[in-house]
């Protein structure tokens, strides 16, 4: 039976997290449908129908869906759910906001942050901040899963030619209203899609000093990340937080600067291919996961690193 994916998008473009979710879906069944819920989201629909492996794109385009409020999207998904045995979304804040509602309305469990598909009813997911890996089997009639993007390669964004189906249902709750949004604007790659990330922690001292990381990021085409301590201290905004309760990343290269390596931080980055740590404390736990550790004052090492790249 076909798999339904709820697309991650901002009405303008399809987010890469959707592509990783498509790969997870194709490991369950070859017939993969993508639901685009939004407003004036035609370009997203175009992009979704070109993704390799996607056979059908369902479109619900209405002002009521502009901000993809969970109350509305979950009910819409439930209305189309009878055609599916699996409903997937990327484990982003949008997916995590909506899918548990879908599962509860369907009276089934929801499995979060799936990193591996063992079989159509058996999935692998990290628990305890990634300090244990659980394999779980479900006999629920509909399996509702959020997919951790670092567990799956991205499907090709072109090569597909999916048919389209317009959904005309409009579900508009009058008890949840969007007021405003402050979205980070950056020319850098998105944190969860970047192949190189340089992250700063409390050791950076203040927000101004994050400029040091920008110099290196410019040379490497890197995204910038942060520890919780750096976000809590107001050095940088919350969308940069990497960790158990922030973003999960697995770039080719992760450079941790002035970050001690608490388990909650490691949970979000320890699957990176190569980890570099720059820290002045040689006993910092981050060195236990680092491929290359440099014991140094970051205020000397980072400018020097920028110069030598």
């Amino acid at each position, binding site marked *: 039976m076909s798999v339904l994916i709820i697309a991650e998008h*901002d009405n303008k473009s399809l987010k890469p997290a959707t592509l990783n979710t498509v790969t997870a879906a194709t490991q369950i069944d070859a017939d993969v449908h993508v639901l685009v819920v939004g407003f004036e989201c035609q370009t997203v629909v175009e992009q979704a129908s070109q993704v390799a492996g996607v056979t059908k794109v369902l479109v619900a385009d209405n002002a009521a869906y502009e*901000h993809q409020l*969970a*109350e509305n999207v979950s009910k819409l998904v439930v209305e189309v759910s009878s055609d599916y045995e699996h409903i997937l979304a990327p484990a982003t*804040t*949008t997916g*995590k*906001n909506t899918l*548990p509602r*879908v*599962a*509860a309305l369907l*009276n*089934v*469990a*929801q*499995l*979060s942050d799936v990193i591996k598909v063992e079989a159509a009813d058996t999935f692998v997911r990290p*628990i*305890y*901040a*990634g*300090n*244990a890996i659980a*394999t*779980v*089997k*479900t006999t*629920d009639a509909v399996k509702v899963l959020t997919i951790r993007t670092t567990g799956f390669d991205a499907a090709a964004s072109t090569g597909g030619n999916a048919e389209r189906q317009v959904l005309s249902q409009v579900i508009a709750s009058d*008890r*949840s*209203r*969007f*007021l*405003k*949004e402050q979205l*980070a604007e950056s020319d850098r790659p998105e944190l969860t899609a970047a192949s190189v990330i340089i992250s700063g922690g409390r050791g950076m001292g203040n927000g101004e000093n994050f400029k040091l990381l920008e110099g290196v990021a410019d040379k490497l085409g890197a995204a910038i990340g942060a520890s919780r301590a750096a*976000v809590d201290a107001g050095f940088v*905004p*919350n*969308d940069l937080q990497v960790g158990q*309760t922030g973003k999960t990343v697995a770039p080719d*290269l992760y450079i941790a600067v002035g970050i001690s390596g608490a*388990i909650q931080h490691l949970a979000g980055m320890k699957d990176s*291919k*190569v*980890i*570099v740590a720059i820290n002045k404390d*040689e006993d910092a736990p981050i*060195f236990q*996961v*680092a*491929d*290359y*550790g*440099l014991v*140094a004052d970051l205020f000397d090492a980072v400018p020097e*690193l920028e110069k*030598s*790249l």
Partner: protein
Amino acid sequence: MKILVSVKRVIDYNVKVRVKSDHTAVDLTNVKMSMNPFCEIAVEEAIRLKEKGVASEVVVVSVGSKSCQETLRTAMALGADRAIQVETEDGLDSLSVAKLIAKVAQDEAADLVIMGKQAIDSDNNQTGQMVAALLDYPQATFASEVAIENGEAQVTREIDGGLQTLAITLPAVVTTDLRLNEPRFASLPNIMKAKKKPLDVKTPADLGVEVGSNVSIVSVTPPPQRAGGIKVGSVAELVDKLKNEAKVVS
């Protein structure tokens, strides 16, 4: 206004987790247990709303075995007025827990349900959303700011792209993120006082809720360990390794 807060007893966030050698579960024997950090934030937010005169009563609920009474007492020492334990085995799945909490919220006629966004043991991040769905309430998850006015909660949410602010009509569910507040510590006199606060015990049958799950655990294993790395002596050596050994920099 009445607030219901849910709390979960979990492994303390500082404890290094170990998987049982038979790969059936995480080993919890003799491990320090605490209130889930996100639930602490939920309790704190409710108490602040009461201190501001916005809320009149804060009821705290936990689902689990007798040991979660300790967590309920902690919540009352922090300022919750009374507690309800829904007595079940530990480790019920999110949907069952959500059904129980939803029923308690209904019975209590709570105007606002505040819950942690996730528990640091199962890392599910689901229960609040499920409670909201079961009651057909609006929700605001991952909250970093909550203001109550005219029967509405204005909530700023931490989302992947930045911050989003919603207005939701009460009754509603809010789940907490890390930066909503900094929880207080319980004072000794308040810990003593909490022992005398009312704590009701209910069963799923009392609430008329059937619990159970179609999900079973096949195995719980330790994560793959990273091979140990090396220390480099200088930035020059680091760059050389990244270019010529790891080949991640050109």
